């Protein structure tokens, strides 16, 4: 049989059959329904929905805030990963475990808690208010929520790469008179660059689809603080299934492009790793 290589182990038919059937029923068929629902629209209608002023406004916020959040996480994710891998300080292990909190914490909880902290009278919001910085119910709040929920991706992508940086190489460079910044630019950065970019892309991917934490802090004003997933929900609540499906397909296409980018980045990282090992 050319489909699979022979093996003495049993159960291929059962497990492979169950896997593909269940996958088709729960994931593939429903996604096909989405694409077909959008495909059943007249092309002009589809174009009208996905390029309406309100939709364009929501893309601007969703993508702008997600890019900004991923950039913030690129910087702080690196700093946190560096701190956790290079330095020993009291509570390091607890902090390390807490990094995954946004994975485990339900988004609705993150949403109401962030809104409370950054509202005008909140713990942090009250100090930002006199400075003229409004967080809750503005795009700043949206960015903040997206930063929180996508932060673990950035840290966890960089951490293993930092552990792989050869310390003896750094030591050798410094012994030969290289400055710290030079070592960072020529040894550390090239090693962790693929991981940094992967973390950035993963953060962005997570942020762009986020709904739960954002709707509490956003204020949800059309054209101003309305993200694309919320616009989809509004279409659904008006029983405009086709409009919702059209916007859903736009987001799906973007997810695929991002997923492809992640795979390419990871392949690039592996190739560099193999080259470095030789």
């Amino acid at each position, binding site marked *: 049989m050319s489909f699979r290589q022979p093996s003495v182990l049993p159960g291929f038919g059962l497990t492979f059959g169950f896997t593909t059937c269940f996958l088709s029923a729960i994931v593939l068929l429903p996604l096909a329904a989405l694409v077909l629902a959008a495909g059943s629209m007249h092309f002009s209608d589809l174009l009208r929905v996905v390029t309406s002023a309100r939709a364009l406004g929501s893309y601007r916020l969703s993508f702008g805030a997600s890019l900004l959040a991923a950039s913030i996480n690129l910087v702080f994710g690196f700093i946190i990963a560096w701190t956790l891998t290079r330095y020993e300080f009291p509570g390091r292990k607890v902090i390390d475990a807490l990094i995954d909190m946004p994975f485990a914490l339900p988004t609705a909880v993150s949403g109401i808690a962030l809104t409370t902290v950054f509202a005008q009278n909140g713990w942090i919001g009250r100090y930002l208010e006199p400075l003229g910085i409004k967080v809750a119910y503005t795009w700043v709040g949206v960015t903040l929520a997206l930063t*929180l929920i996508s932060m673990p991706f950035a840290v966890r992508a960089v951490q293993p790469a930092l552990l792989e940086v050869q310390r003896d190489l750094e030591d050798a460079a410094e012994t030969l008179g290289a400055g710290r910044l030079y070592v960072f630019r020529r040894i550390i950065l090239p090693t962790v660059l693929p991981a940094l970019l992967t973390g950035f892309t993963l953060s962005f991917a997570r942020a762009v689809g986020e*709904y739960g934490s954002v709707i509490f802090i956003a204020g949800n004003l059309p054209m101003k603080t309305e993200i694309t997933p919320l616009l989809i929900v509004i279409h659904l609540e008006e029983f405009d299934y086709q409009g919702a499906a059209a916007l859903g397909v736009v987001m799906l296409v973007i997810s695929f492009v991002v997923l492809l980018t992640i795979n390419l980045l990871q392949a690039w990282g592996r190739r560099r790793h193999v080259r470095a090992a030789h």
Partner: protein
Amino acid sequence: MAASPAGALAGEDRRPGQHSWMHTIVRWLFIATSLAFLAAVLLAPLATVFVMAFAKGVDAYLHSFADPDTAAAIRLTLLTAAVVVPVNTVFGLAAAWAIAKFEFRGKSVLITLIDLPLAISPVISGMVFVLLFGLHGWFGVWLQEHDLSIVFALPGIMLATMFVTFPYVARELIPLMQQLGNDEEEAAITLGAGGWMTFFRVTLPKVRWGLVYGMVLCNARAMGEFGAVSVVSGHIRGLTNTMPLHIEILYNEYNFVGAFAVASLLTLLAALTLIVKTLVERTGYRRR
């Protein structure tokens, strides 16, 4: 040479990562920045949950769970997780067995498809079931004629939750089983053990920590899912409101003690999840 001890000492001082004051400053700058960032975006919100939940005292906190709608939301969330987690666990085991134990064409495509729900917005994960089973959906009319409801009812909530938590167990087990190899299973089969016996006596004990890891993460996401469930639930109080959805309703009604009391339970669940995860990692099971 007289100068050599002093020179050696200076060299010793400049050893990277050691005593130079530059390194000390950079080190504390990094630690301070990390802690400040985490305190603002993570620790402050976590503390707020409990401060707000107990803002009017312990009695008010406990009283908020006496609300029948809150109790119903907790029951619904537990019920959903009790169905979804075992189903996705069975799926994860089957997928990992097929993918890790055999070589076949299209394997990488299959792995990508299993991971697909992770890349999809939760709103879309819920919407696909509305498109299929909603009143104006593909099977809407048929379902109505047969007096069945999926969307705005329990089955829809379970389907949407199953969709978003679909990859969690599988993506933990597949790399683990690939890494552990097939030698022991092949020996067991060659010595005459049956397939099921090999699975239960050889494979399952080998992958048990990966399984626990995946199930705990799957459970956390199942109990906490908001977007996908929100789209299919219909928000019927006492009937189709899960805990995260109930938080939204209470919060929008300015019942902050109630909202944060439910949130505190989910926060404790998240903390418990992290503790189990850390303990599992300590057994030597590492994420890749």
